[in-house]
């Protein structure tokens, strides 16, 4: 039978969900209450178990890749909360990423979405020069008063919904962008590590100061920091969107850029990037040599929270007198299972009053480009999240991923709430500065 033959030949391709991975799901349903889209809709079609069943049904030829099928697959946040609670250890992220790659081959896109996908995944994210040009233009748009004009004149409402959503969630771009330019930044106290710093694609422009803070913290903890120029975007957005060709190119570029440096570890402060970097071996599984190199690379990648919490980071912390709440970024908490470390860091900061929201581990609805592709569900999740945050009366929202920062900042302005969103490492950096002995920048 046709389907069986197709599957047999593709059985070991990472671009089709593996039968063995799908077989792990025993459809017990213990994932349901951890799935933000199931909680929002009550529909099995929007649950991890349901999506696995749909993916399996498609692979078996029982259903076809209709718009409805695509909708259920597209609506997954890939927050991987289900994966973290699954007793049978179903590798849901891997299944969903492969299902999206498979779907991208099967589905008929409108010329407009095909063009948008090509622009973003192939031309923009992988190319730092173009990203910087765009960021510079956007910064000019904000600074020259054009943004104010567009918003005040109501012109913003005339924009297509996706663009409008992007316009609204755009952060105020910083005066200084961060450029990976082969910098070598020596440790500001006894040197203990030689580390490579992963900059990412959006972070340097949207959140350059977070990078500066991260590097200050790392140098203070005894790291010689190297920021290789040859690094690239991690490819997470491509992988989540089902785009594999460019993802693999990016993966190989990064593996090469960092393995050549001979560093003790590669530090990343974006949870989404970190999770993707650690899983390059799966992406490159088809080529044994590259798989091995990616495995070696993945084994030295550390999220900055993971790294800092393992160091004697406490001496020199000064007070940060704020009432704060912590949003656990999904790709930190669920995909990388880094739960205790960020809290350990925050709890060590004197004066910081940490108030938990009801569900700090539920997705905020950012999920990469989800807030643009599924604005309705994304906004529903964000609204729930902002209500939980309001209940904490915290005015400092701490998280560990640029997507979450963008989304929560948009949530603050939409709901008219007072406060600010910061990366955890920025707060740690404040604490060190308050503690006095600030290392030379």
């Amino acid at each position, binding site marked *: 039978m046709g389907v069986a033959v197709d599957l047999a030949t593709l059985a070991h391709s990472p671009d089709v969900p593996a039968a063995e991975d799908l077989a792990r799901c*025993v459809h017990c349903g213990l994932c*349901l209450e951890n799935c933000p889209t199931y909680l929002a809709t009550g529909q099995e079609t929007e649950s991890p178990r349901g999506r696995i069943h749909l993916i399996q049904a498609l692979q078996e030829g029982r*259903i076809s890749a209709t718009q*409805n099928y695509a909708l259920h697959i597209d609506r997954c946040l890939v927050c991987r909360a289900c994966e973290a609670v*699954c007793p049978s*250890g179903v590798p849901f992220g891997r299944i969903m990423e492969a299902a999206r790659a498979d779907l991208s081959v099967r589905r008929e896109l409108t010329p407009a979405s095909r063009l948008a996908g090509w622009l973003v995944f192939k031309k923009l994210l992988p190319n730092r020069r173009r990203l910087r040009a765009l960021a510079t233009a956007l910064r000019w748009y904000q600074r020259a008063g054009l943004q104010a004009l567009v918003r005040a004149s109501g012109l913003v409402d005339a924009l297509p919904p996706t663009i409008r959503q992007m316009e609204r969630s755009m952060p105020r771009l910083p005066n200084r962008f961060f450029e990976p330019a082969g910098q070598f930044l020596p440790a500001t106290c006894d040197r203990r590590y030689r580390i490579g710093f992963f900059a990412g694609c959006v972070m340097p422009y949207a959140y350059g100061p977070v990078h500066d803070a991260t590097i200050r913290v790392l140098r203070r903890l005894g790291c010689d920091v190297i920021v290789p120029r040859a690094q690239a975007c991690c490819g997470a957005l491509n992988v989540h969107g089902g785009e594999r060709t460019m993802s693999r190119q990016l993966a190989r570029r990064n593996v090469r850029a960092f393995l050549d440096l001979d560093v003790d570890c590669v530090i990343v402060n974006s949870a989404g990037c970190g999770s993707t970097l650690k899983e390059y071996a799966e992406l490159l599984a088809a080529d044994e040599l590259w798989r091995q190199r990616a495995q070696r690379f993945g084994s030295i990648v550390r999220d900055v929270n993971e790294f800092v919490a393992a160091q004697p980071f406490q001496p020199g912390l000064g007070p940060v007198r704020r009432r704060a709440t912590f949003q656990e970024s999904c790709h930190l908490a669920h995909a990388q299972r880094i739960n205790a470390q960020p809290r350990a860091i925050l709890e060590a900061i004197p004066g910081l009053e940490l108030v938990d929201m009801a569900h700090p581990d539920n997705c905020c609805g950012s999920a990469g480009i989800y807030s643009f592709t599924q604005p309705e569900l994304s906004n529903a999740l964000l609204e729930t999240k902002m209500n939980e945050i309001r209940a904490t009366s915290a005015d400092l929202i701490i998280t560990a991923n640029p997507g979450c920062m963008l989304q929560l900042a948009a949530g603050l302005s939409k709901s008219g709430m007072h406060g600010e969103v910061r990366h955890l490492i920025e707060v740690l950096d404040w604490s060190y500065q308050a503690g006095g002995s600030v290392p030379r920048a």
Partner: protein
Amino acid sequence: MAVAECADLGQRLIELLGEDAVLHQPEDVIVYEYDYGLDRAVPQAVVFPRSAAEVVAVVKLARELDLPVVPRGAGTGISGGAIAVQGGIVIALARMKRILDIDLANRAAVVEPGVVNLNISKAVEPYGLFFAPDPSSQKACTIGGNVANNAGGPHCLALGTTTNHVLGLEIVTAEGEIVALGGVAPERPGYDLTGFVVGSEGTVGIVTKVFVKLLPKPAAVKTLLAIFDSVDQASASVSGIIGRGIIPSALELMDQLALRAVEAAFHAGYPPDAGAVLLVEVDGLAESVAEQSAAVEHVCRDNGARDVRLAKTDEARARLWAARKGAASAMGRIAPNYYLHDTVIARTRLPEVLARVVEIGERHRLPIANLFHAGDGNLHPMILFDIREQGILERVMEAGREILQTSVEAGGTISGEHGIGVEKNRFMPWIFSQADLDVMARARDAFDPSRRCNPGKVFPIPSACHDTSSRPRARLGRVAASHPDLWV
């Protein structure tokens, strides 16, 4: 039903409930073909009502079109109770998930059927109260499903099953009437119809409101883990503990195969090399708890326990329980498929019946893991298999049938807490006479004379009751045969 009629049904339902509350396309309804059991059946449509009035509207349309209606909570049941074996409309109650009232004076709460079991206890925790039935799926299963199946759980040993904790119900009958049964008042005249509906598996109506009883949390709790080299020693300890007049709040047994999967999944501190463990919980006043836990430890050591550990912190306790409750779901780590059984026997006969279960597994060359509520003799043998192996399903079904037969022969019964559903209705004549079944059917007919509420469940289907093995083979075998390498 023809495709055109299906589309028409979808349209009619959308007119009633709105676009976002109806699924009727093939690639939507296909995910409602399962629950946690092995059976599969695709409904024609799925609706998501938000109120009893909307349930009434759907039920009336179903009556007009003469279609079955099948209530569904979270779909975590194991007996196929929530699947539409005769087609029709699945009424998914997941959006009716409000806690309507917490009545502290009467220690009761009024909840909608889609409320998740654990969320009731979470909501009343600030008042020092909890909802007692605690099925292993409690973090996902709904109260409506608990009512339908009269669900139990580890702690029903001392506290009883769902029926002991439901004070009243509101149901919508297949005729579209809204009926109130029972209520918060402690004594009520007339028939105990609440008791009748609890455990009726959706065959008499759709539950739209549940009045639940809340209990005060015990003053003190101790949780012990007794580690044995053999299942025999553990089961002897069970009889020993109960024989000494101790009724622990929970008394759970896990054998080695189960322990292996559980420890791989949860790292909760279960010894994967042990032959068996008992998880024993005692609660009450501090002095009596200390006394009881000492006695439990003594009995276990007398019966050859290699070690008896006490959970020192709440966190350790929580981890032990999280692992126990996720245990069945962790079996995916050691086998792609398993058939989870649910039988009850007198606990004095545990060693003998467990030995028979081992023998059945060996004879059919099927590994069987055991994790069960030992205190009330509620066995959960799990037959592990890989459905892709040719002809294995026949062996699994036959082994399952023999396990049930063994339990019945030992004076036990065919289901403890998972329900009969479509999984075991053919075995009902083993434990009920024709007269018993007739009276039950007449009682059902009083609520649902047209028999459109969850048809094909509980009662044996006349043509199938003589053939005990062909039905499941036909259901699963059809899919397996057309995709020999794929159906997993």
